[in-house]
């Protein structure tokens, strides 16, 4: 049994007379300790799938199971401790009037975990933020610094599943490398499972064992890492993504 099982999932937003079919019958399964990548067209429903797993999207069909248990809409405390998400827009997901310290320590308080000071410092160190940033507000940080706060927050509760939506798109090459190395180390040490979205096929290739390519709310093609690296894709769309990524091939 896979840890994350998504079966024929559909998500439909209703917004003033418009029905937006954001996800149309997508199935995927992520094994425990596996790292699974979602790539594809902007607007194709990748973020919506991650949000649906967190109970934050209007599921109109299909099912999502975590460890064999069907998700109900009211994701409780224990779910939060197991599954954490790093959102695509760190600015929107950080409370503007909460200091970094409060953002990082609040989940600990809610879950009754102690040792707050040491854990907050450790989290800042882990994502390469100076400890002196602890009492800053989100607007006093650069874009990449905010993204690192969002990653640090997701790690506070030591979750078992991480949903990562473009976790390094606002980071420079060196901080991206440190962050990807940290994520991979935690995955190995703690046996974490990742479901991650990225537009950078080199990042996906580095991080993921399997990949699902999406377009128009639908799954287009599933690929193994080897199939990606050796251009063994079957669909035109997956091939076009690969072709447009020629600048990040090993030889190039």
């Amino acid at each position, binding site marked *: 049994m896979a840890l994350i099982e998504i079966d024929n999932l559909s998500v439909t937003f209703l917004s003033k007379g418009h029905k937006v079919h954001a996800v149309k019958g997508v199935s995927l399964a992520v094994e425990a300790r596996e790292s699974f990548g979602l790539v594809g067209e902007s607007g194709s429903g990748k973020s919506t799938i991650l949000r649906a797993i967190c109970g934050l999207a209007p599921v109109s069909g299909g099912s999502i199971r975590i460890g064999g248990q069907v998700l109900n809409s009211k994701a409780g405390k224990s779910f939060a401790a197991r599954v954490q998400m790093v959102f695509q827009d760190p600015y929107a997901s950080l409370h503007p009037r909460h200091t970094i310290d409060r953002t990082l320590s609040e989940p600990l308080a809610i879950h009754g975990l102690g040792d707050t000071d040491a854990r907050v410092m450790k989290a800042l160190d882990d994502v390469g933020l100076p400890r002196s940033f602890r009492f800053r507000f989100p607007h006093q940080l650069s874009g990449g610094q905010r993204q*690192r706060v969002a990653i640090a927050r997701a790690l506070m509760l030591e979750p078992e599943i991480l949903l990562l939506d473009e976790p390094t798109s606002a980071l420079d090459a060196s901080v991206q490398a440190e962050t990807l190395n940290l994520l991979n180390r935690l995955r190995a040490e703690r046996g974490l499972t990742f479901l991650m979205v990225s537009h950078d096929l080199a990042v996906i290739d580095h991080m993921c064992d399997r990949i699902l390519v999406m377009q128009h709310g639908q799954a287009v093609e599933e690929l193994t890492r080897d199939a990606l690296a050796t251009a063994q894709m079957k669909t035109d769309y997956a091939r076009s993504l690969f072709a447009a990524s020629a600048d990040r091939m090993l030889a190039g």
Partner: protein
Amino acid sequence: MSLLSVRNLRVTFDTEAGLVEAVRGVSFDLGRERLGIVGESGSGKTMTGRAVLRLIRPPGKITADSMVFDGQDLMAASERDMRALRGPRIAMVMQDPKYSLNPVMKVGAQLMEGLRQRDKVSAQIAYDKAIEALEAVQIRDPERVMDAYPHELSGGMGQRVMIAMMLIPNPDLLIADEPTSALDVTVQAEVLAILDGLVRNRGMGLIFISHDLRLVARFCDRVLVMYKGKVVEELAAKDLLAAKHPYTQGLLNCLPRIGGPRQPLPGLDRNADWAV
């Protein structure tokens, strides 16, 4: 004469915890070309871009020996002059587009606002122009997006709406802060082609801030590399992937590659001397 000339630009924040020097003496000239700015997270790229528009919120302070846009002294300009420049002459695509759009106003109304108020065009013409601008950036269902609020857009759709909005008034200078970081590679190529066309055909100047070194190397003409608030290297974009400066080289070494090994990516030994 260059379109924009900046000499010894500094941006500082006087915070409770002490003085933060976000930009420390940046100088550059921009013609009707594509100038890339790359560099470490927190190195002052965004603050440099915002300073050109004099959009630094208090307690932030801007100083410069000179900052001249198309013959106009930006340091001496009144706030009223700056408002007239922002948008029609100098536009900026913000790094957090969904945060920069008005959350309680429909996308369509935001796109049409300038056309209606500044250019005084009819509602129908403004609507048609807005739809056209959305189609140009590859938005699949522009009518629906016109009627949506920013939170109803995907990350990359928000980015494209912001780009469309900034391009509608035909600015002479576009400062684009990570404008394509949330776009898939094929849509990204279309958006870059639009920007490229505006530089080539209309002589727009473009400042392109990005973390994607490989993208900057193939898209831009020249590149500034920033580190801790300073420009540490300036070079032709085609030479970026063979950069000499140890910081730039270090950055390139950190990049993952398709088909590359799975071992940890090389890190970067930061050297305090690079930015003295």
